[in-house]
């Protein structure tokens, strides 16, 4: 079970600023462990961000995204209480979805 995605949503001048930090190893399948064995690829492939059920961003990731992927962007409008959902899935079928309310 993966750790929760840390999500920050800030209202500023009619814009909702979003920052999120996902918890994931993002192994590219090319690294070796201490015994010289390849560490299998394990990385997030898809991310979806929704506000009140509407998709605001969809992303596809390759393994060049850093460990514990970080995203920051802004969306127009917003109000306190808006529900922000950040979901991801990885190449091994792992999934996670986290929700916050804009304050």
């Amino acid at each position: 079970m993966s750790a929760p995605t840390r999500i920050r949503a800030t209202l500023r001048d009619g814009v909702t600023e979003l920052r999120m930090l996902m918890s994931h190893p993002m192994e590219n399948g090319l690294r070796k462990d201490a015994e010289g064995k390849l560490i299998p690829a394990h990385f997030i492939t898809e991310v979806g961000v929704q506000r009140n059920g509407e998709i605001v961003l969809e992303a596809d990731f390759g393994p060049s995204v850093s460990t514990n992927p970080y995203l920051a962007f802004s969306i127009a409008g917003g109000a306190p209480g808006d529900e922000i959902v950040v979901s991801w899935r990885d190449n091994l079928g792992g999934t996670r979805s986290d929700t916050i309310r804009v304050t």
Partner: protein
Amino acid sequence: MDSRRRDVLKAGGAVGVWSVLAAVGIAAPAQARDARNGGVFEAATLDDALRALGAQDAAESAAVRIAAPDVAEDGRAVTISVASDIPRTEQIVILIEENPYKVAASFRLSGAMAPAIQTRVKMARTTRVHALVKAEGRLFVARREVTVTVGGCGT
């Protein structure tokens, strides 16, 4: 296909969109991924990546701006921002030329989203970063070099 996916995503809501995706049989991650990206993320050469993206003839544009450090001490996590001044920007793709897998991330923007994204990527060594922007079906590109002191793509 895209519109269907959006409907499915909407239906998922806070319940967990991916479990819904799996439930309706869009299923296997590898399948879904290949269908949508046409091998973009598997591309091991820059030419292959640009071809898979249909971006060989992307127009160089000063309206695509890449913010990145000139020198990155640690290639494991280099912060990059891409912003587009091109109206109706619908997609932003970040490529790292010297990495084993060239395409780092592809972002599909909703109308609500400001056309700018910040993320962190790995860099195996000193490399050019390419930012592709799609707007109204046309492709634009900007490039920027980042000097990497200690590579971070792990071998």
